[in-house]
């Protein structure tokens, strides 16, 4: 009795701990540049960006010592190189849209949104495939702003269901399990040699 309530309370606790906000997650290096003594590396996850939600992360380091710099302000701008890519609107998991950045003109990246807290990160919503220009500005108190630019080749969005196919395996598996258990039980109920006795 007591353990059931404890389990329930534990479940609720874990549930609320788990339900954090959308987090960027490092990923693959897209480009790196060294400017004014700073090494700035840009990562995306997925490694080959596609239209829809994209984790964008930036690591700022001292170019000489490779020590991570954590007190900078990092902003980024994403713009399509070909204007025709703008009108489309890619699919995003519905609730994810609540915490993702849809204003790509200028958005801030911070440590809170990153899994690896050395990174500055943001979850952005790329509306369409095509070639996009990414500009990252790093500002540190008392120093000149550093700006680096690079291109992102954004692929067409993959069909949403392809990311969720594993969830649809659950019903057939459960049905298969049910059928297996039922046939095992009915086999157990039918005594061996019963048919010959009837005959």
């Amino acid at each position: 009795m007591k353990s059931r309530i404890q389990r329930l309370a534990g479940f609720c606790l874990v549930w609320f701990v788990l339900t954090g906000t959308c987090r960027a997650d490092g990923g693959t290096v897209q480009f790196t540049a060294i400017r004014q003594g700073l090494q700035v590396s840009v990562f995306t996850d997925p490694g080959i960006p596609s239209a829809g939600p994209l984790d964008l992360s930036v690591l700022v380091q001292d170019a000489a010592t490779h020590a991570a710099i954590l007190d900078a302000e990092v902003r980024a701008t994403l713009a399509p190189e070909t204007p025709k890519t703008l009108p489309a609107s890619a699919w995003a998991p519905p609730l994810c849209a609540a915490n993702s950045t849809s204003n790509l003109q200028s958005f801030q990246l911070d440590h809170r949104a990153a899994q690896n807290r050395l990174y500055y990160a943001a979850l952005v919503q790329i509306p369409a495939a095509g070639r996009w220009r990414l500009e990252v500005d790093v500002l540190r108190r008392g120093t000149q702003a550093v700006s680096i630019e690079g291109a992102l080749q954004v692929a067409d969005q993959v069909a949403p269901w392809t990311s969720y196919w594993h969830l649809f395996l659950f019903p057939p598996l459960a049905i298969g399990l049910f059928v297996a258990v039922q046939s095992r039980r009915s086999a157990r109920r039918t005594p061996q040699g019963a048919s010959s006795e009837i005959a």
Partner: protein
Amino acid sequence: MDVNDAIYGSWSFRLEPVLLLFLAGVVYLRGWFRVRRLAPGRFDGWRLCCFEGGLFTVFIAICSPLDAFGSLLLQVHMVQHLLLMMVAPALLLLGQPYLPLLSGMPRWLARDVAGPLLTSPWLKQAGRRLTHPAVCWLAYVAATLLWHLPPFYELTLHSSAWHEFEHACFLTTALLFWWPVIQPWPSRPRWPRWAMIPYLLLADFENTALSAFLSFYDRVLYPTYERVPRLGNISAVSDQNIAGAIMWVPGSLLFLIPAGVIAWQFLSPPRRYRPMPVPAGSSLSPARYPSGPRRTDLLRLPYLGRVLKSLVTRRVIQSVLFLLAAAIVADGFFGPQVAPLNLAGVLPWIHWRGFTVIALVLLGNVFCYACPFTFLRDIGRKFLPADRNWPRALRSKWIAVLLLAIYLWAYEAFSLWNSPWLTAWIIVGYFTAAFVIDGIFRGASFCKYVCPIGQFHFFQAWFSPFEVRVRTPDVCRDCRSHACIRGDKIQRGCELRLFQPRKQSNQDCTFCLDCVRACPHDNVGVIAVKPAAALGHDLSTSGVGKISRRLDLLAIFTVLIFGAYANAAAMVSPVAGFLEWFRLSFGLLPYPVAVAWFYVVLVMVLPGVLLGACGWISQTFGNCRLAIKDIISQFLVDLAPLGAAMWLAHFMFHLFAASHAPIPILQRILTDLHWLPANLPAWHPRSWAFPEWLDVEFFLLDLGFLVSLLGLWRTARRLGGTGSGAALRLALPWMGAALVLFAAGVWILFQPMQMRGLMMQ
């Protein structure tokens, strides 16, 4: 934030694996407590520590900063793999998990699913083959070698899905590898014990070869590590060499230590076998586990039980909700008429609905227990007569059906969620109706016959894990007072006319606990039940009768099952676009009329066609002698889990998307009252939203679908006799209908949805 804080703060929580680990830990703990009573020597605290430690090691490997830094440093990645391949599996198996896990499962799961499966010959055969030492060794060595080949390793560095698959491979093959070495009870060794020494040494040979290559190779094996920015001043080659050393030294030790222990045991003089002391009357056969525990009774919990049972607790909670309702009404009338800026636009539509459905799934009909409307009614009864009987002609749920249908239509037609003013009026109207009806008529006529919210909760409470029911039926057999329904001089009995000994579900139960307080034998509790257990049995329950014979209740079920889908569909873009097109196609039809058509089609016409077709097919091809309407009334209730799942997914979606929305509204109100300095509230607060939410929604829908199928199968077996073929012919069309609803739900969940309750739409 300094670098150390950043490194140690780089934890991640991924929903599915963490939930799985947590559940495994809880199930093992529960089972361990049970089996320890029977075999304390075999299941001591050390076993518990090992198993929970193994789970914790997996958690550390996949959620700690090791995971975050694994893509930057190969040495960190190597530590992560060592934990998954050497430490976690060995600890898990040392916990001798078979019996504790089996005993820790819910009884029905162990008895009906795990038991038959584990005793099936083909599974035993497969298990025997899979745990053969040669197979285990080969699987482990092959997995280690293959995944360390550059093309495969690179694949995992670029794809999180492959990375997770790699980890699953490592953990699974390592569990197999350590199986013959640890030989968890009750498995039996296939090879002599001494054979484990070459088994381990040969695996160490492969490990040494691989790690030596990594340690001494002077070029970067995995190009990704050359491209990522270096942390500190470690070059990619040095990083690779250190990774090799980690794999070599600690990795080899983890093979050599057990090999040494086994050699020591082999060379030591044999100990005389002493059987474990087993308490009399117990058996260690898995079939005898678990011994049946008493059902959980919330009212028997220490302290909490007494608090829950007390009327004062209910009144306090009701008065708090009453004050909250008053605040919502005041803000709805006098606050800004923009939903996300107003308590009336957020609390009733987002939080109240969301928390209510969660409470229904975790506990039971908590809302009716805390209902503020009946709170005012109970105060009013001090002054009002409440001495008339509810008219006989109206003793059904038809008024509630009508009100539910009107609510569903008005919600969309007048965007109730977007109008604080209308919301305030609805709340006032509700209070007035409850006050007037129950001030004139006896009992809880409002709750039983009128309240549409109550009907929604009764419907959803079919799937709650707790039920107000008698503790010991024998006690009721001897009872002559029937105080649970009649009451006594001090305490009223059940106002919804539910007689506890004959009550078999949560239908019509408001969880008011009057029956609990009235029972002179203290024989009514809030007792754990299997959710949806009544489904498919067409039980007759007190105060309700058989649902299949109650047309009004079946109408409520229809509205709530199909209404769940219509209500959710109305907030997705393609349907909103279709409604707009429909309006324009018919000469700018007024929006409420278009919505009325929408609901008539989705909640009346389509269900009518679908249910009628299923009934006809069942009758024709299932050789069923029942009339079509009787077949429909038998099967319809079984579709309820799909409706309940959709309501749950829908309301929780809004709750998670707008979880923090009341904070800026409170800031605004406090600023208006001059209790806070006039700062602009943060209108874009964070929320509990997370990318995997869609997974949770699909899981809920999957669960609803499966429970529906189970109910349909039970009903078909009941109507079609014991033959599986006849039952299947009866059930198949209904299973098809369930599949249609499930597919509709999947389609709705995939669509872009309105972010109601937020400043964004």
